[in-house]
């Protein structure tokens, strides 16, 4: 059994985080040593929170060293819980309150143009992420978290889901692969997660198991809400099985491609032009469309090159993708505007919808625009374009003020 647990982060470049060193003793009561940048303003409340937290876990004797760089209370709580659980076996959870702003639902058909990755163990990036208006926020427990930090990241992500306002973004978590992924699910699912990203997905069986596990977690917690899945295809085998994966369970709403790992699997260099992944991307789009889910493209890793990002996103849209990952908030608007319908598209779509309405009113079975017959799927797509344009504030007469909330 370990004697001392160290959790969190400290150092000259670390902000909004804290490092805890917890040593459980057999006598002497609770001793807390606090170093904090905000000690003058929050010293007492941090000490109180730590004391109450230790009390919650029935720890009566301990030495706790807190090195704080302006962490918010939900971070302190996560770090403390991780430290305690490194030393003591307990099923208790030290949960911060679920903020009212965090209870909104998602829906299957919502747009997923831009989804912003947030490293799951880096609290400084979480607070303002939603202000940049991504369609989705991904709290990442997988690749962006160092192996030694996986345990503590889980509590931080869970607490962020309860306390951080993501301003309407779809609330996503990328879990780890394999067994650890199931543990992740158990920890985060009860806290209004909308969508789970499943990394390096290569089989429909695994996804089915995850979905089953998710169902039972939701049932145990009396949660009625659906949980969506976005498997990420990151290998040659995954690409071959894309359709099977996309249609494995009903709650898959999108499949994404992860090109860093995919190109590594192929043994080729990833380029900005992306010719090496052309087959995989097109195959993935086809599989997704066949399974009636959204195909989502990989992230673009050169954060400073906005023009290349724009070009990539436009190409991606032309392939049929319906979104991309973002690794920096400044990519969000570029991606959103690249996937947004062009003025010409909007104009045509409204003509189609208008024609359909008129045909309906006249009781006509066949819709036509000019001399062209219009099929129902075309109408559906046109409606989707209008819907999208409205949501993106691209139709001037019907402004949507929600953007500024």
């Amino acid at each position, binding site marked *: 059994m370990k004697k001392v647990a160290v959790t969190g982060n400290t150092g000259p470049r670390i902000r909004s985080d804290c490092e805890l060193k917890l040593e459980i003793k057999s006598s002497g009561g609770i001793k807390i040593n606090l170093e904090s940048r*905000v000690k*003058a*303003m929050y010293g007492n409340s941090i000490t109180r929170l730590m004391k109450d937290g230790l009390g919650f876990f029935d720890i009566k004797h301990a030495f706790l060293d807190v090195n704080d760089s*302006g962490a*918010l209370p939900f971070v302190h709580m996560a770090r403390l819980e991780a430290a305690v659980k490194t030393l003591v076996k307990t099923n208790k959870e030290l949960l911060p309150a679920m903020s009212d702003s965090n209870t909104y639902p998602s829906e299957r058909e919502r747009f997923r143009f831009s989804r912003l990755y947030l490293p799951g163990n880096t609290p*400084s990036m979480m607070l*303002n992420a939603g202000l940049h208006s991504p369609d989705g926020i991904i709290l990442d427990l997988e690749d962006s978290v160092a192996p030694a930090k996986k345990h503590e990241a889980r509590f931080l992500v869970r607490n962020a889901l309860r306390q951080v306002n993501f301003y309407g973004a779809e609330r996503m978590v990328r879990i780890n692969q394999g067994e650890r992924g199931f543990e992740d699910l158990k920890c985060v699912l009860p806290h209004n997660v909308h969508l789970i990203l499943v990394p390096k997905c290569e089989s429909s069986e695994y996804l089915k198991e995850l979905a089953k596990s998710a169902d039972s977690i939701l049932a145990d917690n009396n949660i009625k809400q659906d949980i969506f899945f976005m498997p990420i295809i990151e290998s040659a085998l995954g690409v071959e099985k894309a359709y099977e994966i996309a249609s494995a369970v009903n709650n898959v709403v999108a499949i994404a491609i992860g090109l860093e790992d995919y190109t590594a699997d192929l043994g080729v260099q990833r380029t900005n032009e992306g010719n090496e992944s052309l087959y995989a991307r097109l195959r993935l789009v086809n599989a997704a469309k066949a399974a009636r889910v959204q195909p989502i493209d990989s992230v673009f890793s050169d954060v400073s090159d906005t023009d290349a990002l724009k070009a990539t996103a436009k190409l991606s849209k032309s392939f049929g993708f319906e979104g991309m990952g973002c690794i920096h*908030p400044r990519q969000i608007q570029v991606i959103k505007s690249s996937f947004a319908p062009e003025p010409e598209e909007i104009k045509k779509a409204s003509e189609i919808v208008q024609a359909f309405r008129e045909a309906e009113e006249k009781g006509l079975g066949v819709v036509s625009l000019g001399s062209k017959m219009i099929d129902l799927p075309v109408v559906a797509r046109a409606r989707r374009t209008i819907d999208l344009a409205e949501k993106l504030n691209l139709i001037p007469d019907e402004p949507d003020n929600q953007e*500024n909330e």
Partner: protein
Amino acid sequence: MANKMVRNAAGREVVTEINGQPAVPFKGVGKYKPEGRKYAPRISSCAYYPDDGDKRVKTIKEALVKAGIKNGMTISTHHHFRNGDLLANMLFDAVNELGIKDIRWFPSASFPCHEHLMQYLDNGTIHHIEGSMNGPLGKYVSEGKMKGMAVLRSHGGRYQAVQDGEVEIDIAVIGAPMADPFGNANGLEGDSACGLLGFALADSQYADKVMVVTDNMVPFPCIPWQIQGNYVDFTVEVDKLGIPERIVSGTTKITKSPDRLMLAELTAKFCDAAGIIRDGFSFQSGAGGTSLAVGEFFKAIMKEKGIRARFARGGSNKYLVSMLEEGLVDYILDGQTFDLDGVRSMRENPRHVWTSPFTSYNYHGKGNFAPLVDVAILGATEVDVNFNANVVTHSDGYLLHGIGGWQNCLFSKTVILPLPLVRDRVPVIIDEVTTLCGPGELIDVIVTERGIAVNPLRKDLLEKVRDSGLPLKSVYELKEEAERICGIPEKVQLDDKVIAAIKWVDGTVIDIVRKVKIEK
């Protein structure tokens, strides 16, 4: 000795005496009427100066002796070399070697590179500092270790204090990237090039003795003479005045922080919506990452709409220079240059003009440039619900920043503070500022990532942006939002001892800073 405290017009309790001199409490913006005549230095005569114009002395120490250095004198320096300055450290090494004590050091600002001088505060060489402090010296002073009381002034306030005789400088030491033996000097050429020497203007005009120290002595004439040798007593050559990369950066870079970019973008959008960005307008934006980015967003809007600004106030940098060179701005009126492009442009482009605190900021003059600026974009450490702002102390009471030109810029037609609402759990909008540096009546807009608050006094601005779709909120809403995120801060406990006085632009005392409490 107890210092009598009075409540000034801003409701702050302030001292009536600073280091033995009487001090006038702040009376309100524009309410204090100065009387009498300006200070005048002694009359000199050419008869006592070398006929060949060669005023060179071998060392700083020798010049100090020739200047008649004595205990208790006031010695001034300037922050043209910013955090790359070597001169102030060399100077006080010499003062220390001479065994002189109780100097009032009167820098235009001090930086972390001056940490070296702490030993001279400890050993009594320096009695106290009157000038902006950035970093370690501020911490030293905050902890109550300095003998005398610090006095912080704006750039304009410093000029005013010298001009009015509030501070009589015995010896001014002016570091010059280029100078001639007569004492003509400028900041444009040489290894220590910093652009201009505007902060030293008052000192050259009013100090009893003036010493120009250079690492780039050229034969007479040094052109242009930003500092006129006719004011100068001695010139000294040294190997090196500063560390170039810390004087000006090779390349200034716009922030990559998405949050700061967002603030900058919102600020520019606000200015656009308020009709501030229009043909012939003028602006001033600081050197911080956010401010630089504001300039870039301004540029994009101006380009798109074909707008040309009449002038921009510097600190200049390559971004502002590019606006000048692309014809988006007619003139840069520069107070200091922050990068090599700024220095180059000032050297080569007659439309890139060097200014001084006298022209830009001096409140006791027949007008100054600051109120002619349409919009100034500034920083702050805190703002309160009455729009009062603090730039010198952190919320924990530590005095860590100088005022710079900040107070002076508050007289611009519109003053905008883009600030993150939350800085690592420190809420930026609070009930009452720790230290008052600028009265709320002069601060018009606070732009945060969670909303924009317009000062209710600016009904005209509110009217203009009402339907802009910008996220307008009241300052109270923003404060509550910050507290919801951070928690309500505990009241910071400070000691009774006053460690610094904050002067307003007219020389009155707007606030004081108390010693922080240090845990045993």
